[in-house]
């Protein structure tokens, strides 16, 4: 903004075309440098994964590795049971994403297409509960799960999945509410129940939201650090926890180059999912912004 006002103020005598061109150049310069800054931390992570331990400890900074240590990326697999942890992450994320998507679609349909006394209040509670800090409920929930013997099992994710997520419910509710009324009217006349209307008519229509919801829930769970850290033992825990805590020598000293390589491999799947499914992802994000 300041750049544009500056040019208009000082270049009154210069032809419009030149002014537009300098302005455009300034815009690109800003954009390119900001984008560079934004990609910097991840680039540095990748670079760190390609260095030796000595280079990573060097002071002053050793900018580029003398030779690229590609073997860090394979060593990361053998230092810890990387694939085992990845499998744990995958199981939990798929389990939760599938369940929560289905249950949220179910609940979203209820809020979009049916009514009953108390619906308004319930919907208010639903929206309000989006603003509940999950960390506040997570800690006492952990104590309850411990009491019920569900620590070190995947049951908590099943329960969380079945309980639906307010945010995704809202997503489905917005989508279902936008579908034309005629969709179910004919079915009602034919004597179809609401459950079969949901399964046979609404659910097949909603694959864009279904996939958006699935991807959002999957990335949440894949990225979650604190719940698996609290609930799962070191063998059954997820990749997030393993990457953060498991790359240490027998003496307990961290192995940063393997940790960096491992975290790149931990992050990249999420980035790829995002790049492939970008449209749905972004649509989901902006609906959640309640525009």
């Amino acid at each position, binding site marked *: 903004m300041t750049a544009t006002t500056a040019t208009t103020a000082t270049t009154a005598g210069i032809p419009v075309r030149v002014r537009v061109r300098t302005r455009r150049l300034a815009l*690109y310069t800003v954009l390119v440098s900001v984008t560079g800054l934004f990609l910097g*931390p991840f680039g540095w992570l990748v670079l760190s994964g390609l260095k030796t331990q000595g280079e990573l400890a060097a002071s002053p900074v050793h900018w580029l590795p003398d030779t690229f240590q590609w073997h860090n990326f394979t060593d990361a697999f053998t230092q810890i049971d990387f694939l085992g942890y990845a499998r744990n992450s995958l199981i939990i994320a798929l389990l939760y994403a599938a369940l929560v998507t289905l249950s949220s679609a179910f*609940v979203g349909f209820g809020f979009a297409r049916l009514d009953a006394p108390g619906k308004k209040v319930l919907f208010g509670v639903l*929206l309000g509960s989006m*603003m509940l800090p999950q960390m506040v409920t997570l800690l006492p929930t952990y104590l309850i799960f411990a009491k019920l013997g569900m620590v070190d099992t995947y049951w908590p994710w099943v329960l969380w999945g079945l309980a639906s997520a307010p945010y995704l419910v809202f997503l489905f509710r917005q989508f279902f509410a936008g579908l034309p009324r005629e969709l179910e009217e004919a079915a009602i006349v034919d004597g179809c129940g609401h459950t079969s209307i949901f399964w046979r008519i609404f659910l097949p229509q909603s694959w864009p939201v279904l996939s958006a919801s699935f991807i959002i829930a999957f990335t949440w769970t894949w990225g979650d650090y604190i719940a698996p*850290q609290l609930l799962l033992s070191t063998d059954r825990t997820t990749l997030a926890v393993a990457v953060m805590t498991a790359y240490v020598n027998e003496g307990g000293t961290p192995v940063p180059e393997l940790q960096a390589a491992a*975290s*790149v491999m931990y992050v990249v799947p999420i*980035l790829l999912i995002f790049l492939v499914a970008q449209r749905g992802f972004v649509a989901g994000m902006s609906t959640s912004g309640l525009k």
Partner: protein
Amino acid sequence: MTVDQMSPVADRPSGRAAASAAGRAPATGRRRLSMTARRHRAFYLFTSPWIIGFLLLTIAPMAYALWLSFTTFDGISPNWKYVGLGNYRELFNDPVTWDALGRAGLFAVTSVPLSIAAGLALAVLVNRPIKARGVFRTLLYLPAVVPPVGAGLAFKLLFDPNSGATNGVMTFFGFEAIGWLADPYVRYVLLMTVLWSAGNVMIISLAGLQDVPRELHEAARIDGASAWRTFRSITVPLLSPVLLFQTVTGMIASVQTIMPMLLAPLQDTSGITTIPQSNYLYMMHVFAQYFALGRYGYASALLWVLFVLILIATGLIFKFTSGVVFYNVDPEAKK
């Protein structure tokens, strides 16, 4: 509810459904009754996963925490007892609580406005008709999908006092190297991790920006308004519901961030014992009491205080913005 007001569309479909149901009423009086009853039953059937889940996984733990907050329960010793408001009295008299709360408050009032401003600025930039803006949007948003563990590690390496790139650049330009990951600088690293995911705000603001009618900008230009004036008087008011939503969710996210833990020197299972003082936010204090010390009763009291404070803060935000936030209810735009 409050969020409901932000979305003028939210209530329409159900309103329409109710209206058409009422319209059918006189014709089929008898059948309608049973149909209505069935609809009501179906509504509760469909919403039951959420209702039951909310009761069991949100209300019950909160109630359990409230009960624990009046006890000395630690999970181990069998003779824990009811102490009434003892835990609350202790936490109010503990300067550590107040310091942690103050730091969390400071972090919220700096990180939230900064990331909103940054996200909005990015949104305005990538909303310009330029080449490859899709690429810019994607790349700027990308950091926001990096999981916290990856982000924390990347920033730890980037700001490593010896081998980090930041100190490398700074010493190259003749500045002193800084102990970024220790007191007092680590709080700025924490702030930068938040700014790094400003793409979140960007994407949501962008959706709002694209809803701003073109004619408004053209009219402003014809009236001779400067770019800044147009931004301030047209863009910001029309975006205000989005910005309000960002403020509230940003504040709540800032309260529950675990980034201080991930930026701390060496991760052990408790993870909380190595957090530098300036990143020892309120939530970290709760974690320390919970897991390092096992003081479940006391930590539950801390949680409830936090919960009430968040409710108050949210209420205040809505109260003070109610006159400022502009809800664009445009009947033409939504048909």
